[in-house]
Each structure stands twice: as structure tokens, then as C-alpha cells.
């Protein structure tokens, strides 16, 4: 029996509880379609191109509990957890499991034009708004994991950056996996950067429990004409954590996005990113770094769709793999007919520090326009032995020299992080990770 059956059975038997616990029409109205799709096609298997490197069936097979009754976390999350970056002031919001906890302020913009609301709050204060955006971008490319999330999601967060707003304070969403038993969380986020707006959202994933935790996450980001949006995702969880994350981005003319994905500690991570460049002159920079050892598994899969002329995409992903870790990267840049003067760069580089570590690299281009400039490349290798020896000749211990070289390799990606204090913090965390002082996440070391 396929792993999906337990979720479909649960849905069939608990439908009323699910709908009532959620109480949101835009979410409840889309469950049947998701169930039909999952029933008909099941979960994506290894033969599905975008899930070639991750065994979804096995990842979803264990019996995880769900928080159907929407039990709120017992303790005040702002007191229990701490996640902040030194010298970085953010609008902070905790999500424990998939329960969004109240903001310490009123959730409104504080004069900055940025709203951070739960789906329920959005429905109440902006009737009809959520329905316009929820599951619109995500529905364009049918995906089994997104369908599973849509089937079971009960709440989520809205980040709305009003037209023309230049938000100085990033929004920080801290996802905390916590609990005394295996738990599945289904998170959902809708980000809208309206015309000419600019802002940043930082997602931090942490685990406070050593229990197996399964997360499905769907983030939809709509970037309107001339808007600018930076999204950062930092994962620092636990080897017992499984995360399926799907980011859908739709960009209008002259918009810009920077999408960063950093995996420091995890169990199994499968990130899907779909960027649709729909308006002329839209640009996106998608970058990521992963450090994995033991049996960690990191799979980043990107699809950038140049659907309008004059758009630019720049993809850079780097992995450092040790132990028996698996790192997979697949990036496809699709240039549609008529998307003339598209520019695209794509680089994937992997360092394998052990013989058992495996890197899968698949950079792809699919081009239907004739006036474009697109490059892609990939490397898998070991540390530069001549650089290593040069450093040792200067007295730097071999272990330290390796660490410096690996750190430099990853820093090349971190250079793209637009917020200086975050960049420095990440660089520090990467160093700690390489030094083996960040082997598991107990709360959040972003702040300690």
C-alpha cells in the first residue's frame, strides 16, 4: 500500500474536524481537488523527474500525528524559544508545528506598510483577499507534496507589503518543530509584495525535539511590477527532521527577487522552487548552500520559467558533503518562445569530503528563443590539494586548512545574502558547523 493512503484515510475520516478546526473557506474549498489528485496519481515516485533523488514514499511512510484539534503550544513561544540575529531587528513571528502563535504587537504594519497576519486574521480584516492568492501559483504545476499540504493545511501566514512600501525591517518567521511524539506539520505562507514595494522575509527552521518531525511547507510569493523581495530560508533542525518545502514565485515586470536557501543541519530536506518570470525585465537570483554529513540528505530542485522577454536569472548552489551524505541539485531554466534577450547563469558546485558522500548534479537549459545568453555548469570534486599544501607550509594545521577552504567555498554563496548582519551570522554558523559545534539544534543557535 502506498504511503499516501494513510493520509487519504485520515482525511476521509477527519474531514469535519479538519474543516471546523480550520474554519477558512479558501483552504477548505481546495481540499477535495487535492484529494482527487492524490487519489488518482499518488505520491511522486523516483520516476518523477523532480523527485528523482528523494524517496518520498519512504519519507512519508512513518505514522506521524497531526494537530487536528489546533492545540496551541503550552508555553509562551517568545519566552521558550529564542531566535534572533545579533544586530538585526526583525518583525518576529513563531510557528510551532503548524500553529501560528500571536504576534507580540497587533500584527499590523506599525506604520511601515507591512502586514504579518494569520490566515484567519487576513480573512477577518481583508475579506476575499486570501482567496485571490491562496493556492493560485501553487496550482499551476500539479505536485503531489503540494497537494498533500493543501489537503491538510489548517492555517498559515500572510505577509503583505503594501504598494510603494520600502520596508526596512525584515519579517522573520521562525518555524519550530517541538513535541513529545512524532508530528506532521503542514505550513502555508502567502507573501505579496505589491507594486513598487520592497521587503525581506527570513524563514528560520528549528527543532527543539529529537522526535521525528515531518513538515510540508508551501510558500507562494507574488511580486508585482517593480517590486523587490528577498526571501531567506535557514534550516538548522535535527537529523530526525524531514522537510518538504515548495516555494512558488510569480514575478511581474521589472520586479526582482533574491531567494536564499541555507541548510546547516537537517535530516532529509527536499526543496522545490518554481520561479515564473512573467513580466518583462524581471530578475531573480536563487542561491543555496548545504553542509551535510552522516546520513543527511539535501535535495534542491529549481525551475525558472522565462516567460517574458528581457528577464534575468542567476542560480548558484554549493554543497559540502561528508560522511554518507547525499546532496542533489537539479535546476532547469526554461526560456519560452518570445522570451528574447533572456540572460541566465547557473552554477552548481559540490565538495565531497568522503568517499561515501554522493552528489547528484543536473543543471538544465531548455530554450525556445534564439536571442538569449544562457550558461550552466556543475562541478563535483575534492578540496584543492595544492591550496591545502600551501596553507600547511605556512604552519596551518591540515584540519584547520580544510576548514578554511570549505568555509571559503560556502562563503561564496553567503556573499549574496543582502542583510549584512545576517550574512555575518550565517558565516559564523557555517564555521561552527564545520567545527562540529552545531551538530544538533536545541532551540536556536542563531541567537546564542
Amino acid at each position: 500500500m502506498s504511503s499516501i493512503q494513510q493520509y487519504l484515510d485520515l482525511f476521509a475520516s477527519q474531514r469535519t474536524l479538519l474543516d471546523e478546526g480550520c474554519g477558512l473557506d479558501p483552504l477548505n474549498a481546495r481540499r477535495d481537488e487535492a484529494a482527487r489528485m492524490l487519489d488518482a496519481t499518488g505520491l511522486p515516485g523516483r520516476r518523477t523527474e523532480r523527485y528523482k533523488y528523494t524517496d518520498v514514499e519512504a519519507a512519508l511512510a512513518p505514522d506521524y500525528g497531526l494537530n487536528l484539534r489546533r492545540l496551541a503550544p503550552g508555553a509562551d513561544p517568545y519566552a521558550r524559544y529564542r531566535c534572533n540575529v545579533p544586530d538585526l531587528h526583525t518583525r518576529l513571528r513563531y510557528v510551532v508545528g503548524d500553529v501560528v502563535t500571536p504576534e507580540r504587537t497587533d500584527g499590523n504594519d506599525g506604520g511601515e506598510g507591512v502586514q504579518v497576519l494569520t490566515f484567519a486574521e487576513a480573512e477577518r480584516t481583508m475579506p476575499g483577499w486570501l482567496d485571490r492568492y491562496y493556492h493560485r501559483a501553487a496550482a499551476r504545476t500539479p505536485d503531489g507534496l503540494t497537494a498533500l499540504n493543501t489537503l491538510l493545511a489548517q492555517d498559515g501566514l500572510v505577509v503583505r507589503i503594501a504598494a510603494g512600501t520600502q520596508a526596512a525591517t525584515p519579517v522573520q518567521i521562525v518555524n519550530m518543530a517541538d513535541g513529545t511524539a512524532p508530528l506532521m506539520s503542514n505550513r502555508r505562507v502567502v507573501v505579496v509584495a505589491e507594486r513598487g514595494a520592497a521587503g525581506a522575509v527570513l524563514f528560520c527552521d528549528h527543532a527543539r525535539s529529537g522526535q521525528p518531525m515531518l513538515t510540508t511547507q508551501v510558500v507562494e510569493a507574488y511580486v508585482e511590477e517593480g517590486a523587490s523581495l528577498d526571501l531567506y530560508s535557514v534550516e538548522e533542525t535535527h537529523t530526525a527532521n524531514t522537510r518538504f518545502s515548495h516555494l512558488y514565485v510569480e514575478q511581474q515586470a521589472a520586479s526582482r527577487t533574491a531567494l536564499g536557501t541555507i541548510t546547516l543541519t537537517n535530516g532529509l530536506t527536499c526543496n522545490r522552487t518554481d520561479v515564473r518570470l512573467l513580466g518583462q525585465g524581471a530578475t531573480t537570483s536563487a542561491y543555496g548552500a548545504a553542509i551535510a554529513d552522516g546520513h543527511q540528505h539535501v535535495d534542491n530542485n529549481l525551475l525558472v520559467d522565462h516567460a517574458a522577454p528581457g528577464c534575468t536569472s542567476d542560480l548558484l548552489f554549493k554543497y559540502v558533503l561528508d560522511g554518507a551524505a547525499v546532496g542533489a541539485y537539479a535546476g532547469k531554466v526554461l526560456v519560452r518562445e518570445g522570451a528574447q534577450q533572456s540572460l541566465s547563469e547557473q552554477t552548481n558546485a559540490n565538495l565531497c569530503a568522503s568517499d561515501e558522500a554522493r552528489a547528484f548534479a543536473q543543471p538544465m537549459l531548455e530554450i525556445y528563443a534564439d536571442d538569449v545568453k544562457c550558461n550552466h555548469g556543475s562541478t563535483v570534486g575534492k578540496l584543492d590539494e595544492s591550496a591545502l599544501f600551501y596553507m600547511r607550509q605556512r604552519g596551518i594545521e591540515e584540519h584547520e586548512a580544510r576548514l578554511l577552504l570549505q568555509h571559503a567555498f560556502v562563503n561564496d554563496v553567503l556573499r549574496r545574502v543582502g542583510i549584512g548582519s545576517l550574512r555575518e551570522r550565517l558565516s559564523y554558523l557555517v564555521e561552527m558547523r564545520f567545527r562540529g559545534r552545531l551538530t544538533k539544534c536545541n532551540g536556536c543557535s542563531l541567537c546564542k
Partner: protein
Amino acid sequence: MLEIKNLHASVEGKAILKGIDLTIGDGEVHVLMGPNGSGKSTLSNVLVGNPKYTVTEGSITFNGKDLLALSPEDRSHEGIFMSFQAPVEIPGVSMTNFMRAAVNAKRKYFGREPIGAAEFLRLLKEKRKLVGLDAHFMSRGVNEGFSGGERKRNEIFQMAVLEPSLSILDETDSGLDVDALRIVAEGFNALRTPQTSAMVITHYQRMLDYLHPDFVHVLVDGVIVKNGDASLGYAIEERGFDWIKNELKA
């Protein structure tokens, strides 16, 4: 200071050094000359413990210690420095971080605390001046985007910071224009003390002019075939290596 006896070494299974005997005393400058492929760079690399080279026979004693038993790092700490013929680029590792790691590694070896921030910056500034290396190089990656001349100057800068007792200059003069060569050589001379020694590999008379070596050795096919003073170097500059090879045949 350094005593090499009957040294044989190979690289990738091919014998390169075939019985080197060489003694370098305190404060001495030795110049090693020889045609391409004669083993000069191999000897340098063996001295600093490059793992690509295998010693098959012989011994090296450095200040009474068995050099071959030491790791490359420990050889560095003990006072051996090599200015590389082709210094490598290390993108992303800034010169400052690189030098701090090197300085602190040596201090740790001798049981000393890491260097203080202010003292470290003073040290870098003082040594940079010696070779005319601009401050902005310190924030760049090691040799990243450095010209050939800047790389060689950077080697002497590192030597100045680490204060070795034995410096090996592997064709540090190659690829330098006359001004750069003067700066590098003067920088090197400024660091000389009665206790510091050097082994210099060069093809050019100009280097002899600047360094005033005490000894010149000629290496042919993995063995030292002729020893002399600076005049031997000038003779080679004038007559090439063939007369020595012909002498050997005779």
C-alpha cells in the same frame, strides 16, 4: 642548521633526486642552479614535506631534528619557509584570516596565546611596508587576482611575518620586472640576520648581484655536480650549463 645526506626522492614513481649531499650553516645563503628538470624544485618540495614527493633514501637533519619525521606544519613551525615558484590562489580565504591562522598556529606550537588584534594589525602593517604591499591586499583572497609580481611580493611578505630561520626561495625572481625584483630582494636582505639562512633557486645573475651568496651549487640530473662561490654563478650566466656537463663527461 641543515644537513642533507645522500638524499634520494621520487615523484609519481620517477626517481628525481639521486644522492644529494648539502650542508647549510647559520647565516649562510646558498644558491642552487641547474638546468630545467635537474631536481631543484623537487629538493625544495622535499624539504617542506610536500606529500606528492617520496623520499626513498637518505636523511635530512634540521637543527638537530629528523626533518623527515615532521609534518609540513611542524617543519614550518620549526622555521622552514618556502617561497613558492607558483603561489596558489585561495579564493575566499582573506589574506588577513590566512595570516592570522598561520601566526596563531605557530604560537600554539610554542605554547603561546593567540596574537592580540592590535598587535596583529601592527605586525601586518610593518611587514607590508617592507615589500611595498598595499593594505587592500589584506582583505582580498590569498593571491586572488594578484599579478605575478604581487604574488612574489606576497611570498616575501609572508616570510617576513613568519620569520623563518631557513628560507627556500624557489625561483622567486622569475616573472618579476627589474623594480619588483629589487623590492623583493631588498625585502629579503632586510630580513637577514646572522642566524637566518637561505637556499635560493635562480637562473639569473641579477639575483646573485642582490643576494651575494656564500655558496653556489650546480645540480644536474639529481646530484650536485659542482660547488663554488658566487663566481660559479656568474660563470654559468656567461657560459651556460653545457661546459659543466662536458666537464663531467670528460
